[in-house]
């Protein structure tokens, strides 16, 4: 029996790419915005592009915020991608202050647009960047077959800052600025980069996620 994964579709962004990648690694994937359907799933994936405030508003309107908190309280598998990672934190400073899902302690802040020496850094950051896995994460099942400094694909202007180093699964750099780009806490795993757009290495990560269900 292939495992059933639901991509949470809260009307922001593109669910198709991540679904295609899930299908490719043999998962039985659907998308839904109906919390009642979540019960039968083995895992949820929370994707997302766009603004933090709009995304939270949409999650709340659909009752998905409560469903995601309940899911996480039960330690069930949840994967956040890009904005879907940022939403797991307590608050973001994107266009004012917005509360997040508070599944992981910490905040979301804007990437720096200059280096310490004063050179310009482009925000949004768009492109491939080497990802350093934390020691604990590198030896986990999820990171099996993934090189310690493989390149992944990023598109973002904000980044998450976990309160506890224990939650940090990987880091990367924007110019000379180092930040957390993957977290793991309880049943929740999330990446700032897009595994579904990161070629074979991203597919390996998704396959690992699927095989752990």
């Amino acid at each position, binding site marked *: 029996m292939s495992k059933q994964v639901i991509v949470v579709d809260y009307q922001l962004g593109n669910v198709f790419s991540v679904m295609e990648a899930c299908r*490719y690694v043999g998962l039985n994937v659907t998308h839904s915005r109906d919390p009642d359907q979540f019960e039968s799933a083995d895992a949820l994936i929370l994707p997302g592009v*766009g603004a933090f405030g709009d995304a939270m508003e949409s999650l709340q309107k659909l009752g998905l915020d409560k469903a995601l908190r309940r899911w996480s309280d039960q330690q069930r598998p949840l994967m956040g991608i890009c904005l879907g990672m940022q939403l797991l934190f307590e608050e973001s400073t994107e266009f004012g202050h917005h509360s997040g899902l508070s599944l992981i302690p910490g905040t979301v802040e804007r990437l720096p647009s200059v280096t310490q020496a004063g050179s310009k*850094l482009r925000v949004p950051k768009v492109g491939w960047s080497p990802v350093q896995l934390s020691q604990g994460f590198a030896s986990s099942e999820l990171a099996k077959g993934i090189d310690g400094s493989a390149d992944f694909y990023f*598109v973002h202007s904000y980044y998450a800052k976990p309160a506890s180093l224990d939650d940090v699964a990987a880091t990367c750099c924007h110019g*000379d600025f180092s930040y957390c780009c993957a977290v793991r806490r309880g049943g929740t795993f999330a990446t700032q980069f897009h595994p579904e757009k990161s070629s074979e290495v991203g597919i390996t990560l998704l396959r690992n996620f699927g095989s752990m269900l």
Partner: protein
Amino acid sequence: MAGSTFHQWVNEKMDQLRIIPRLDIKGPNLVKGIHLEGLRVLGEPADFAQHYYEQGADELIYQDVVASLYERNGLFELIAKTARNLFIPLTVGGGIRSVDDVTRALQSGADKVAINTAAIRDPDLISTLAKRFGSSTIIVAIETLKESDGSYLAYTDNGREHTRVPAIEWARKVERLGAGEILLTSIDREGTGKGFDVELIGEISRQVDIPVIAHGGAGSADDVASLSKATGCSGVALASILHYHARFETSVASRQDQDGSRHREGNREFLRGRHTMGNIRACSLPSLRDSLRSVGVRCRTSLSGAS
């Protein structure tokens, strides 16, 4: 002095240069022209796309080169058929005019769309689309060339229609309206292999904070290296220089030759010989990356990521 400082900046501060094969599509075929005209058929887009994916392309661009002209977008079917299992960002351009068009593009497997003609006709479309799909999904394509008075004006309909919109002002405006990236084509360089218009690309890269992808003029790996060093652009879209090499690489060539009935449409006589276009020294993606790295331009290194 200035040179060495800049070189250091390139080495240490800049993000990796994105290398993006660009597939110009007409009907079912991959085509290539000069100055966006005189299109020649190169083969099946799917074969080239798969080849570039395997060789570590950072992204792909599919551009329907006649879509605006005929107000059609038949590209979506082609993408749905050919790009499903290519897990890198895919941009689709040509004939995209509305929220519905973008939705269909994303459903077909695209991750971003490039708009030009429709954006110039109605600049507010950029903000509408950025708000609906997120800025990161919306690329504005700017096609321009140097006029006799030295100015740069934007063109539409794949370089066919002249507008009075100054390209540099337009670049700043599309950033304000919420475009996530700019795909900048130098029509007068496109397909010629005479090198990039570094003056223009450098100027627009400095004027905006969003990523700029340079397109038009690559004749050699050296042209790409000097483009990156001189302009600090974020990415480069490449066609002839890669296609003319890929055409003869085994994985593409064998697929092309298996079926003699393919590619009946268009001029393809010139492909029978091993010649390329005059100024273009074609190369493979891996050899391009090696050349770039050897002169200090950062690009993606670990392709499989497997340990």
